[in-house]
């Protein structure tokens, strides 16, 4: 059946900010779907409030709405745009939830919008546990025993028919949030209670636990002719009980015989039919009892998912793209397989390699959080690696994680106690894989390991083979006498040069030299979806140590390699992938062959048609150097992928690699505190004074010299890790005791802390001559809160024009001094009208996509072209872009996953961001505060409790809230301050003052908004309890005075009901036109100058 012609306009809902459980994979699927629909001539209307996405680029859709992802706003867009259809399956749980709410409210029917891809009924069956269970039972498919409870009493009732452990899973939550396992009735009470609270429909599933069973997933696609194909099977290394997003996963399934696999496939098809997914992709999870093969259906997602993104990257089959085309009426046999171009999409990929994905966690950012992995996902990113064997892929995946471990093995012979090993084996935790390895090394048997971990013996045996190989390697004394065959064998087992260097007590470069002397190099194999049965047209490659054949086939064209950012983590997220993609697109426009290297399956950059060529490889020196050796590029770009590629810059340059843009030496200067301080002094630019200390006493002395408060951090960690503000000596002593060990080898850095300073973020592009500012952002929160965790506003709203001039002037001076070529980000603080430079990052920053969305100027593209040799003048980018209205970028935090005190500080904790635009600051800010799960209230009870410093400032805020109709509740101290100002306040007990206290009231759902600023010193138990309570009970809260001020403005706007929606194009129409012209004209000029070579073989990007 050909595509439908009765549809013209299709609304696509994105997944919004990056949160745990819903991350960059939805930008990948969403932008693929948008592209697919546009290819077919449909007018795409897109709504997504995550500015750091490729899908919100103007090229993705006819109309892009960067507006809040809540039903009432989407309804406004529907009213405005009148789409014929809504595709809800590429925007994660968020899009499904909004679609169902709109359908239930009759909005879709009222405006004649058809749900395509998944019907309301199918979504409901898949989402509502009981309905799903019934549907499965009707289809004759076994599911775990249990039932649905809407109250604690019902939960206990159901549990009586089951054996413990019992699994509790709330309906309609993201990433298994709120799920848990109860081993006793007591535990069941607390887990069920939390699940009921977290479920938006107050419903939990209580069922028999299949913890310890093997877990599998199938990625399935179905078309309107009822053709069903399985794209990929995935086996979880970690057994049931660990969320699949927190599991190491392997594709294809390794331990199923054909009989078992085909039965699973048959069931998957029956699930698709029973749920009624008419078109598109779904993910179906199964549990298999390892002892008797009993199989159960666990759940299904009638949409693209994290696993489908992984499956797409693992097989080369673009699930989201095909799903979009199936949704508009095509059948599988009508669509070509992109990779072979000759065979149809109606087949099941066969792969001839092993794919391993390992999650990346950020527990270190949340001290006190329990690191046990459970059914609730808490990883923030993942790395994927391909190898010809599981061993190779596993080793590559581990070194892709950038945890400082470049694979298994090579660790000192430090003996771990049997007790410790056992603890770390039985309790699923991020370190478990390393403890398994150590356990094997200390002689623990596979049987015992399997028993303790529930991990399949096949996987354990593979790890054992690696350990045995390490033993063989260690038996050889020193690198000098290593036979070539043994070295080759080591590489085939996935050992990196760095690990081999540790084993043989030598340097990585010595191992590399020895290896090259023997001619041992990796070869590159293609990901072709068909195990080489047909010729692949798409160059998507991975390295492996095979003897016979390399398929890299480097062309004679001029090439640029763009190094990606690796796994997402807090501080290095989707923004950097966005910049990498833009660099690839821009340089392709210039006629270069673009080559991307990345190992993060949740990205657009690892889509095989973003760049001309894709290498899925770890971003380590060894792996990157081999690619460079094969491809011999004109240049390598390290500026766009965040810290990961920057860390390689100097070493790459030492190997003679041409690094484009700002020189690695100057990048180093900017990152080295001492060198950088000298430069600032030389330029006569103010900076916070600083010192360094190697003992606690010295630290106190330095701090007293600088004057409290001070900003302290260990010298050996980057990115704000373990950074803190100390307000007095006792704070400092406490910090040194708790957070950092201080010694001459590990000194701590101490900076003057600019209290009550306003922070600015400036992004600019420089070409060595000129420097043009892309945007100046003012933070709402005062200095001291990590820039990634602050709300930023474009344009600034409190500062004088004179100060801006100074900012521009200093920015240009810095660019010239550091000879910046490409992007540069400068962070300033303004204290008492004085400007201080906090840091300079000569690279892409987190704020680049946001500024580009707000101004319509593709900064990353311009920077990439500058790095290729064009000047800003040639690109026509000579003036700081004008800004219309206000744009706010607000962070989104994962505290609801960790339940630690959600206060903000110098260490970044947010996982993502949303953007809101409006004619007033209040409107723009209000739009950033509308989330599916927590809306800013327009009335009700506000609880206010602030520290003494903030008491004067909170009065006008409280007054404004009272005027807006809020009832004010406060603890004694704050109440007194407010009462003196003439406000009516209800006084409530602190937690320490006994029941009923504030935490009780929060728990009872009687508080609608919380304003609570930390007392500055280490958080008191009381405050923490309030804030954690707010997180748990989804009460909107704010922990800074400035945030509260903005919130008041936002509430005012919401209350006035004047929120309007507009497509981003409308805001920046004028600027857009300019930007497009700049991009178009540049490639001609570059060609004239002989840079780049001819037009790319692949068609131009639309």
């Amino acid at each position, binding site marked *: 059946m050909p595509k439908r012609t009765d549809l013209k306009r299709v609304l696509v809902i994105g997944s919004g900010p990056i949160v745990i459980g819903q991350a960059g994979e939805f930008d990948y699927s969403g932008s693929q779907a948008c592209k697919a629909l546009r290819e077919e001539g449909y007018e795409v209307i897109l709504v997504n409030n995550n500015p750091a996405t490729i899908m919100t680029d103007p090229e993705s859709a006819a109309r892009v709405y960067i507006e809040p992802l809540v039903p009432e706003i989407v309804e406004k867009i529907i009213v405005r745009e009148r789409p014929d259809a809504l595709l809800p399956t590429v925007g994660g749980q968020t899009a499904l939830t909004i679609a169902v709410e709109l359908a239930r409210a009759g909005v879709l029917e009222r405006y004649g919008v058809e749900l395509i891809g998944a019907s309301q009924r199918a979504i409901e069956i898949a989402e509502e546990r009981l309905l799903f269970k019934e549907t499965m039972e009707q289809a004759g498919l076994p599911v775990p025993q249990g039932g649905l409870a809407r109250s604690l009493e019902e939960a206990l009732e159901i549990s009586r028919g089951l054996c413990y452990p019992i699994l509790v899973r709330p309906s309609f939550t993201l990433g298994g949030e709120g799920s848990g396992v109860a081993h006793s009735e007591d535990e069941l009470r607390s887990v069920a209670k939390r699940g009921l609270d977290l479920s938006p429909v107050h419903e939990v599933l209580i069922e028999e636990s299949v913890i310890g069973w093997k877990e599998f997933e199938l990625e399935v696609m179905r078309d309107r*002719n009822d053709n069903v194909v399985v794209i990929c099977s995935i086996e979880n290394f970690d057994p049931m009980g660990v969320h699949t997003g927190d599991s190491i996963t392997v594709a294809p399934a390794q331990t199923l*015989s*054909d009989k078992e696999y085909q039965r699973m496939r048959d069931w998957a098809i029956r699930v698709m039919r029973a749920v009624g997914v008419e078109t598109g992709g779904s993910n179906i999870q199964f549990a298999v009892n390892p002892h008797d093969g009993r199989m159960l259906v666990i759940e299904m997602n009638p949409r693209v998912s994290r696993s489908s993104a992984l499956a797409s990257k693992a097989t080369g089959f673009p699930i989201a793209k095909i799903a979009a085309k199936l949704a508009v009426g095509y059948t599988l046999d009508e669509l070509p397989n992109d990779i072979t171009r000759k065979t*149809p999409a*109606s087949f099941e990929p*066969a792969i*001839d390699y092993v794919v391993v994905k390992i999650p990346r966690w950020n527990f270190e950012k949340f001290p006190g959080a329990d690191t046990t992995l459970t059914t609730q996902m808490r990883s923030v990113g993942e790395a994927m690696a391909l190898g010809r064997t599981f061993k190779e892929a596993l080793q590559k995946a581990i070194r892709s994680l950038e945890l400082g471990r470049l694979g298994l093995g090579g660790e000192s012979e430090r003996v771990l106690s049997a007790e410790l090993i056992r603890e770390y084996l039985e309790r699923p935790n991020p370190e478990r894989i390393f403890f398994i390895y150590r356990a094997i090394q200390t002689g623990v048997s596979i049987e015992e390991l399997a028993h303790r971990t529930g991990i399949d013996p096949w996987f354990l045996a593979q790890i054992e083979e690696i350990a045995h190989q390490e033993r063989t390697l260690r038996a050889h004394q020193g690198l000098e006498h290593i036979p070539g065959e043994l070295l080759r064998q080591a590489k085939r087992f996935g050992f990196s040069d760095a690990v081999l260097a540790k084993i043989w007590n030598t340097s990585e470069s010595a191992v590399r030299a020895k290896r090259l002397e023997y001619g041992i190099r990796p070869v590159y194999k293609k990901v072709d979806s068909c195990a080489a049965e047909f010729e692949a047209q798409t160059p998507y490659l991975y390295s492996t140590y*095979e003897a016979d054949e390399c398929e890299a086939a480097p062309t004679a064209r001029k090439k640029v390699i763009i190094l990606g950012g690796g796994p997402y983590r807090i501080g290095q997220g989707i923004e950097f992938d966005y910049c990498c993609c833009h660099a690839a697109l821009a340089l392709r426009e210039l006629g270069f062959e673009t080559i991307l290297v990345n190992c993060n399956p949740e990205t657009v950059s690892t889509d095989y048609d973003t760049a001309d060529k894709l290498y899925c490889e770890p971003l380590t020196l060894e792996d990157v150097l081999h690619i460079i050796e094969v491809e011999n590029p004109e240049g390598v770009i390290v500026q766009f992928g965040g810290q990961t590629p920057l860390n390689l810059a100097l070493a790459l340059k030492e190997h003679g690699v041409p690094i484009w843009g700002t020189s690695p030496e100057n990048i180093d200067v900017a990152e080295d505190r001492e060198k950088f301080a000298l430069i600032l002094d030389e330029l006569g630019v103010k900076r916070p004074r600083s010192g360094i200390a190697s003992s606690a006493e010295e630290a106190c002395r330095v701090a007293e010299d600088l004057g409290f408060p001070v900003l302290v951090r260990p010298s050996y960690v980057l990115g704000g890790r373990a950074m803190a503000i100390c307000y007095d000596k006792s704070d400092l002593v406490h910090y040194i005791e708790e957070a950092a060990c201080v010694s001459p080898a590990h000194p701590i850095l101490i900076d003057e802390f600019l209290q009550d300073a306003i922070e600015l973020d400036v992004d600019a592009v420089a070409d060595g001559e000129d420097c043009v500012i892309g945007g100046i952002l003012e933070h709402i929160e005062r200095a001291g809160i990590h820039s990634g965790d602050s709300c930023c506003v474009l344009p600034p709203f409190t500062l004088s024009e004179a100060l801006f001039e100074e900012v521009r002037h200093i920015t240009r001076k810095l660019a010239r001094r550091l000879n910046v070529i490409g992007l540069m980000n400068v962070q300033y603080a303004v204290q008492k009208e004085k400007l201080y430079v906090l840091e300079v990052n000569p690279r892409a920053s987190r704020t680049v996509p946001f500024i580009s969305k707000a101004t319509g100027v593709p900064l990353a593209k311009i920077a990439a072209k500058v790095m290729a040799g064009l000047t800003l003048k040639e690109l026509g980018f000579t003036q700081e872009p004008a800004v219309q209205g206000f744009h706010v970028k607000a962070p989104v935090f994962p505290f609801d996953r960790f339940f630690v005190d959600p206060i903000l500080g110098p260490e970044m904790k947010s996982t993502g961001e949303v953007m809101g635009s409006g004619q007033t600051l209040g409107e723009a800010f209000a739009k950033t505060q509308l989330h599916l799960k927590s809306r800013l209230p327009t009335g009700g009870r506000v609880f206010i409790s602030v520290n003494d410093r903030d008491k004067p400032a909170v009065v006008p805020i409280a007054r404004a809230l009272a005027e807006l109709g809020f009832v004010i509740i406060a603890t004694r101290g704050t109440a007194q301050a407010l009462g003196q100002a003439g406000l009516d306040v209800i006084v409530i007990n602190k937690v320490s003052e006994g029941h009923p206290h504030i935490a009780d009231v929060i728990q009872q759902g009687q508080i609608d908004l919380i304003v609570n600023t930390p007392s500055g010193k280490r958080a008191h138990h009381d405050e923490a309890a309030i804030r954690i309570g707010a997180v748990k009970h989804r009460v909107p809260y704010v922990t800074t005075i400035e945030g509260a001020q903005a919130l008041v403005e936002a509430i005012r706007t919401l209350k006035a009901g004047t929120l309007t929606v507009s497509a981003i194009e409308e805001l920046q129409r004028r600027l857009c036109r300019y930007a497009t012209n700049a991009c178009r004209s540049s490639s001609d000029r570059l060609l004239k100058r002989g840079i780049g070579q001819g037009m790319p073989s692949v068609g131009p990007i639309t």
Partner: protein
Amino acid sequence: MALLALEDGKIFRGRACGAHGMVCGEVVFNTAMTGYQEILTDPSYAGQIVCMTYPHMGNYGVTAEDVESARPWVQGFIVREISERFSNWRGQMSLDRYLKEYNIIGICEVDTRALTRHIREKGAMRGCLSSLDGDPHDFIECARRAPTISEENWVYRVSCTQPFTIDFSPSEGRGARSESQGPHIVVIDFGVKRSILRHLRARAQRVTVVPAFWSAEEILQLKPDGILLSNGPGDPAILTNAIRTARQLIESERCPIFGICLGHQILGLAFGARAYKLKFGHRGANQPVKNLLTNRIEITSHNHGFALKDLPDELELTHVNLNDGSIEGFRHRKLPVFAVQFHPEASPGPHDALSIFDQFCALTSGHAQAH
């Protein structure tokens, strides 16, 4: 150490696994990611050295339940990695031990992807698999001197020599049934897979398996209600007796006839279609076939190096391969004769086309009732 020497002079090196020794055969590749045991024991692979494209083999061991015949039939087995340790609740022994027990010569740690690409480019060819010491050139010579797949009649080696009524355990046959009830199907054994017999049996049939060399007369004396021409190894064109038998059975118009794989080719040739050798064949569990009668896509299991072309007008094309457009099935426009090139019995592979057994068995039941 072990090596594979191809007739075109290319050498692939690896490590010996399974039995040691030297063997020659046609080198082919299979892209199925599971089902190595079914592949090893599929008689259609007789005479062939099979390279598995999925790198890990032996992960779930070997079990007596999953065999497709009494023993492995491949000449040799080429893998990237053979699991020393297997893991599956049904696993009984390791793949390596199984190969050794049945004296199947294997090689592992081969760049199987490079080998597959070589065969894809150059076509299936003869090879010599050896774990013996010797000059590689001698092994290349051996490969060149080995008979081609069309020069040897493998069917007569794999077919049964005596007719038998199949005797499954009750669990496999859905409970004991009287042998005298239901229609009677005669299977001509060109190298039949047990799964075909299981599917016939599961549909309440009486099944007699007869040797490939039986004449039409002998077969018809069994008073069949349906005849199935099974799968099997080799080049159909050299099976002149079988083609003649097939023609006589068709002309007798006595009962419905169904062909699978080699049986499909024999039936086609009997009708006057032509057979040709595919460059490297279809071997895998992911081949998309369009059923032109239902307009649905069936993902099917394949194992064939030859295919039919030039179907005569009396035959209607019913199945076509979506990858290369090759003929995957036909039926006679008037007679109850039909055949498929792929393996509806799967094993290994998806079950999408299983219903074809229902259709055949419905026809035979109709025949049994009419007579």
